[in-house]
């Protein structure tokens, strides 16, 4: 990043710069994944990790990597990617820098349903992921319907989102107060954690990551046009309403799949897309992949810290992320020319 405002910027120069930056982010994301595989209750050298990944065998080391660390790391990566992509989409379609998966009710919907399961039906905990997913989508759908008035205006969605989230939040708080003896499990769910996440969770989130990621990439051009404002966008032949609805659905699915396996991770969806924008610019053709990669990097590194920092006690990853990420974000904000 440079501090002086760029008055003149060569076209090809900008392109190379952005591609390089994407490469760098990809390297950081890959590094985060390797780090997460190597670090834990027992440290494993990175060379060993790669070797075991390429040639699985029956040693305990291979067991640890293949049955514990690899699925957890991959779940972490996809959760980070989905939340970041969801936030990036929402910031554009809602035309608001404060839009994140929380604003469309995904977090509060998943939160309430998750808490209900964890507190009232603890022996049905296996239902947590699908039920939270349904709760997230239900809340998002309710907000969209409530905000509808002969068309959709982003401001109304945001306001309806705030109201519905407050409503559901009251439900969560009420349950926590009434059943204060069972709060612990619920608390972990509220901050978001990845402990004991394994292959089934990965299979639950993977389809949404693939479909949502591809759809987000394909809509990059439409998102760019949407950045010019509704009137200009529709003058350029974009069906603004339809695009907004379709992309809200994609964003909701991405976020719902993430919170349903990891709980209410609040930080990634808001801050990662902003950071990516400060790093790579506002062109969505680059911003989409950059957000995805940065989301992966942030969450895998945070989860590694969450597991190792106070070992054997494991912190919820959401706490680490907010502690390390918020200052970093503020730093980027100050540095912005």
């Amino acid at each position, binding site marked *: 990043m440079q501090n002086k405002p760029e008055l003149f910027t060569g076209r090809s120069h900008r392109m190379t710069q952005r591609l390089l930056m994407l490469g760098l982010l990809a390297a950081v994301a890959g590094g985060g994944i390797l780090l997460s595989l190597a670090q834990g209750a027992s440290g494993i050298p990175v060379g060993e990790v790669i070797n075991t990944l390429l040639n699985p065998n029956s040693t305990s080391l291979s067991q640890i990597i293949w049955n514990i660390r690899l699925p957890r790391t991959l779940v972490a990566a996809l959760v980070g990617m989905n939340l970041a992509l969801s936030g990036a989409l929402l910031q554009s379609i809602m035309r608001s820098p404060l839009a994140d998966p929380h604003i469309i009710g995904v977090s509060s919907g998943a939160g309430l349903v998750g808490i209900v399961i964890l507190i009232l039906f603890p022996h049905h905990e296996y239902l947590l992921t699908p039920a939270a997913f349904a709760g997230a989508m239900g809340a998002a759908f309710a907000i969209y319907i409530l905000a509808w008035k002969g068309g959709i205006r982003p401001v109304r969605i945001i306001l309806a989102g705030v109201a519905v989230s407050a409503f559901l939040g009251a439900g969560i708080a009420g349950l926590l107060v009434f059943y204060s003896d069972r709060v612990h499990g619920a608390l972990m769910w509220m901050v978001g954690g990845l402990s004991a996440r394994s292959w089934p969770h990965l299979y639950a989130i993977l389809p949404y990551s693939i479909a949502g990621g591809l759809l987000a990439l394909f809509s990059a051009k439409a998102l760019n046009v949407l950045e010019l404002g509704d009137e200009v966008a529709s003058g350029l*032949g974009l069906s603004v309403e339809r695009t907004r609805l379709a992309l809200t659905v994609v964003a909701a699915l991405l976020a719902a799949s993430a919170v349903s396996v990891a709980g209410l991770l609040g930080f990634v969806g808001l801050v990662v897309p902003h950071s990516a924008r400060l790093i790579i610019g*506002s062109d969505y053709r680059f911003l989409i992949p950059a957000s995805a990669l940065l989301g992966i990097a942030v969450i895998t590194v945070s989860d590694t810290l969450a597991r190792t920092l106070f070992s054997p006690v494991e912190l919820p990853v959401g706490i680490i992320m907010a502690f390390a990420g918020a200052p970093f974000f503020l730093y980027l904000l100050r540095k912005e020319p």
Partner: protein
Amino acid sequence: MLEATHISLGFDDQYLFKDFCLTIKGGEVLSIIGPNGSGKSTLLKTLARNIKPQQGNILLDNKAIHSYNPSALARLMAVLPQSTSAPSDLTVRELVEYGRFPHQHWWKNTKREDSLALDWAMERTKLTSLSDRLVSTLSGGERQRVWLAMALAQKPRILLLDEPTTYLDICHQLEILELVTALNNSEGITVVMVLHDMNHAARYSDRIAVLNKGSLFAVGTPEQVIRTDTLREVFNVEADIWLDSNKRPICIPRCLVASADQPIVQKRG
């Protein structure tokens, strides 16, 4: 040819337009003038398909614009709204390139066509030397030219401009108006624009439509329309009108019409 046929349009049961008709001929420059709240911008937005009339239709080549495919319409008609904003890290060329959006499809390679249209639009608006500048660092006049270039890159037959000269100084106002009329002359692009300045409308238009409270008060050549009684009845001002060196009417408002029953504040909507 663009036509508004019997359109009615309103908010909360109160009609702004009722049974409104206006025909815009192919290849002309038509300015829409009228006092605040007379429905100028609303009319332009309706012509641009940004507002759907409750009754009646906007016809383009005798076909309702709401039945056009959005991209197909954007290839025929470009719109420049009154206020525009773009991400701060966008260069001139990148912004103008968005004008090619309705021409691009993922299954089609349009690179050659795109760069031809882009170069043409940048050259006509004299932006070639500013190509790699960030739009956010440009002056108001340059920025308006960039947005005009984006509209031109669409290669439209019709250009709709909503107060394209607002916030510009007199030199840059004329620059935009001359650019637009030159495009009309050389390329035959039909121009429909909302203007505040009557003298600009008289100087640069083939015809002027005067709106008053949602109805068409008059439409015709500048000499037919810019008259003392128009100014008195529609704008509530007394004015002196002469012909300038190009035989176009020019008006200087003298004072408000002196009558007690005419409220000075116009009711909106």
